[in-house]
């Protein structure tokens, strides 16, 4: 009944979307969930939904919004379950789930601006002082602990943390126009930023 060629064409399109967006949404889920395996499972499920509902043909902006809605809600449900089950058992896990739930529920669609802003972030990082840049790279890209970074660069942990602080502060300063720290919420922010980038 279903044409073989058609399936392979659809698969190709879906694969393209998957390769383009998986790691980004995985990164978001990891940011809010304490267990990366949970995050992986959850984001995979979302992509399977994307296939099942044939949404992968929609324009990219809509697709991203759809995946974000899906993944945020899945993460929120996951965190809510965790809050319930960990309440009396694991105070650290409970605290993490509570904080992350609160943060995620206030995270707007402007987090999707990544593809538009990645160049600006790259510039912001390369504008850091060499030592600052090295510390940031080792922490963010090599996932090294502050202690390991201190050993490798032969500086104190204090110096590592001071450099991290400076790095984040400077990057935030350069990206400030694109971060919605004022009242305007995600969506309108998203569109005004998109408009300003055009």
């Amino acid at each position, binding site marked *: 009944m279903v044409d073989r060629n058609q399936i392979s064409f659809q698969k190709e399109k879906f694969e393209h979307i998957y390769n383009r967006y998986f790691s980004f949404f995985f990164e978001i889920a990891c940011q809010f969930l*304490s267990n990366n395996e949970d995050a992986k499972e959850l984001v995979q499920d979302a992509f399977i939904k994307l296939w099942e509902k044939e949404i992968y043909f929609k324009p990219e902006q809509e697709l991203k919004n759809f995946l974000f*809605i*899906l993944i945020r809600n899945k993460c929120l449900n996951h965190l809510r379950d965790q809050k319930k089950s960990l309440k009396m058992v694991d105070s650290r896990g409970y605290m993490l789930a509570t904080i992350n739930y609160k943060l995620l529920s206030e*995270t707007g669609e402007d987090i999707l601006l990544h593809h538009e802003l990645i160049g600006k*972030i790259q510039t912001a990082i390369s504008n850091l002082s060499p030592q600052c840049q090295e510390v940031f790279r080792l922490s963010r890209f090599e996932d090294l*602990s*502050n202690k390991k970074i201190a050993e490798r660069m032969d500086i104190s942990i204090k110096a590592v943390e001071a450099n991290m602080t400076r790095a984040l502060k400077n990057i935030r300063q350069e990206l400030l126009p694109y971060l919605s720290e004022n*009242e305007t919420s995600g969506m309108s922010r998203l569109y005004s930023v998109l408009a300003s980038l055009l």
Partner: protein
Amino acid sequence: MDKIKHLLIHFLQKNSSNEELEEMEHWLKETANRRMLSSYQKLWVWSGQLKPRKPQIEFETIWNKIENQRTFHIPRHIWKYAAVLLLCLNIGWGAIYLFQQKNQSTLSQSIEIAAGQSANSIITLPDQSLVYLHPGSRLEYDFGSGNDSRDVFLDGEAYFEVEKDVKRPFTVHTSKADIRVLGTKFNVFDTRESEIAQTTLVEGKVEFTTNYGKSYILKPSQMIELNTETKTVQLNQVNTELYTAWKDGKIIFRNESLGNIARKLERTYHVKFIFENPDLASAYEFSGTFHRETSIGEVLQMLQISIPMDVKRTERFPEPDLIYLK
């Protein structure tokens, strides 16, 4: 301040100590602090995408999962037809009805405007004030006789951008309250059928007076909610965008129960929800932003993906469609 910076960094690196987490939780009680952390999280997520070796899961893994699941996969073309049909209907209802009534006994002219069922109406009043009228709402105004006040009467929801005129105060009268302003931007919700009256102030200053004579002064970003059934008044700091997004054709849900969502959708689309399983109304929460151009079919489809439920729809044109949730 330094201490906070370390808290932030450890949190992003996911190696906060228990004490730091506790401090974090306390620190995050301030909205401004949450926003700040949220910005850092975004930067963290974004910069993570520059990793030379990104965590990847081979496409084949996910494809195998799909192949195993796909025993009876029926493409849902039906939704597409439903969406097109709904779009056509929406255009039909987009009209605004204007009635001009001349009052015989006085020379004043009262004008009544009823918004259509589906599109927002944007009205410029004689004093150049702007009103966005929510679908299904009615607005009446009388600026004709006497020049000392501006009075409008509202049943439903409207967003006002009032021109400043100190000599002529602007008052919105609703079934439960009067809202008096000088020059400002604010949203009012009060239908006769509902027990709730809401006013959200975006800019400026307004005075909210209940119909039993109690007055409250609102500051920007405050929302006042009067419940005539419980006879309570709540004054809260809110994100005004959530209450005014409708004027730009957006529907925003933030951790809202299905019951609330259904009520909002009923006011936007020509539908009525019936909960066949009453627990469903409060069992799930959902967040998301839709544009008004999104058809109700697509909105339901999105909801259904996040919330396990059965949706059945009965068309009753021109009466609102019934949507059964189970």
